């Protein structure tokens, strides 16, 4: 296996509703900024891959028009996944393993505001049994939260603590959408939204973009002083039907975490893609992370949740802390689908 590292990252500020710029106009400055940071031109990059969802835009092949932001001339080696950008990063990591190229550009973008995001995401469900009922993302997350609250000692106060910490951490994240000091008691006085979830237990609606440069071996050391080496990366999926899952647990995250080697060393920082507060608790348990781990120092997806972007952002936030020397070993997690259906886990390390 070749050693692959994150060597540069860029992201747009999270915005509730980007009313002036289209997707290409949001993405372009992020990609320009990224390439500038890495000191690379598009022609220096061996492989380019994106993660996005055409349903967000309501336009077929919207991901192809996004290439207008990249400058794919002379022709580039390019790919796309209809998934969060974290899975695009996985494809880039796999592509770099071939050994014939040393750099890859990964980007993701998404405006969640143009349509009704809850209805749009319903269409990723089983088309025969679930889609006709239009169960929305929040309702399915609420089912999961209820399953968790009824299963053991987890209380609504635990959920509020996740939210309070997310908002507090997000104060240090210039790209975050929701931040501030909110105490647990105040949060618990808020009315129920979709019981047992309160509105603050749910993610904001976010428009934004993010991008990463990966590089292999010595090329990574050339491009940055302290690359964030991907020591393990794995993704797993739960059964499609919600009814056959134990929603209070995340076996796929557990397996992905084991395969990625989360438990092989001390974890300084974990960036977990938990759009709903209770999901952070499920993920933390599945990954075996103790209370000494700094979870979601960026504020996580509760602070800004660009659909298709927020998972890649977890890898970015983890990698940034390694590259800045603030952490030696970090775990990044991304999710996709309803109620944590698909999960990707990466372990990142700085050079000793």
């Amino acid at each position: 296996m070749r050693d692959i590292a994150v060597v540069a990252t860029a992201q747009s500020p999270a915005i509730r509703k980007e009313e002036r710029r289209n997707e290409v106009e949001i993405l372009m400055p992020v990609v320009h900024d990224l390439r500038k940071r890495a000191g690379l031109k598009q022609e220096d990059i061996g492989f380019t891959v994106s993660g996005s969802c055409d349903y967000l835009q309501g336009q077929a092949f919207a991901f192809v028009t996004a290439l207008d932001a990249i400058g794919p001339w002379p022709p580039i080696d390019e790919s796309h996944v209809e998934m969060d950008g974290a899975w695009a990063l996985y494809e880039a990591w796999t592509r770099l393993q071939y050994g014939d190229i040393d750099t890859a550009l990964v980007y993701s973008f998404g405006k969640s505001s143009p349509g009704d995001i809850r209805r749009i995401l319903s269409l990723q469900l089983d088309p025969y049994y679930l889609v006709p009922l239009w169960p929305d993302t929040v309702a399915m997350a609420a089912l999961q939260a209820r399953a968790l609250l009824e299963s053991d000692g987890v209380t609504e106060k635990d959920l509020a603590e996740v939210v309070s910490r997310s908002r507090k951490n997000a104060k240090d994240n210039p790209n975050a959408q929701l931040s501030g000091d909110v105490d647990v008691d105040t949060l618990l006085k808020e009315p129920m939204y979709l019981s047992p979830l309160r509105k603050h237990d749910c993610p904001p609606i976010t428009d934004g973009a993010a991008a990463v440069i990966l590089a292999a071996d010595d090329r990574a050391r050339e491009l940055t002083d302290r690359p964030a080496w991907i020591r393990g990366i794995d993704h797993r999926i739960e059964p499609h039907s919600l009814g056959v899952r134990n929603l209070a647990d995340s076996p796929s995250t557990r397996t992905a975490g084991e395969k990625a080697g989360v438990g092989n060393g001390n974890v300084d920082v974990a960036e977990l893609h938990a759009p709903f507060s209770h999901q952070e608790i499920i993920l933390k348990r599945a990954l075996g992370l103790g209370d000494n781990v700094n979870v979601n120092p960026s504020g996580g997806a509760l602070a800004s949740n660009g659909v298709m972007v927020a998972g890649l952002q977890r890898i970015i936030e983890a990698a940034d802390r390694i590259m800045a020397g603030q952490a030696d070993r970090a775990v990044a997690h991304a999710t996709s689908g309803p109620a944590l259906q698909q999960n990707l886990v990466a372990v990142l390390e700085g050079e000793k």
Partner: protein
Amino acid sequence: MAEHAEGTIIERPIRLDYEYTAGLAQSRFLKGIAEGKIIGEKCPVCGKVYVGSRGSCPTDGVPTEGEIEVPAKGTLTTFCVVNVQFAGQSVETPYASGYILCDGADIALMGLVQEVPIEEVRMGLRVEAVWADELGPTLNSIKYWKPSGEPDADYETFRHHL
């Protein structure tokens, strides 16, 4: 619901509504159209003028710049004749639809070609816009294109814009 020999067909209507954001560049173009002007934008790297720019040069991946008005007059670079009626069709068949390359632009606009017998529609035909009575931020503001009476354009002048 309809019975089927080996199963049942269910109808599952799906509808999603979107609030479309044209973007900065396309908004400039559409505002121009509402004033009876065709506004292009130039790529600072390759110099191409995009009419209906989405905000970037798709070749170079950089923002297009400047509002460059191009005349509502140009060359029909290629066309097709529609002979088949379909639902929602607003024009009587047969009719010609084609690419119109405005003078000074590097990308063609699509439009109807009328006021000319179908058999006389040809590549290189010089055309000018016939604007609708009421203009708005939509390409419906150009009702169609008609021959301008100028001599046909030489193929070499538009061979890269087919």
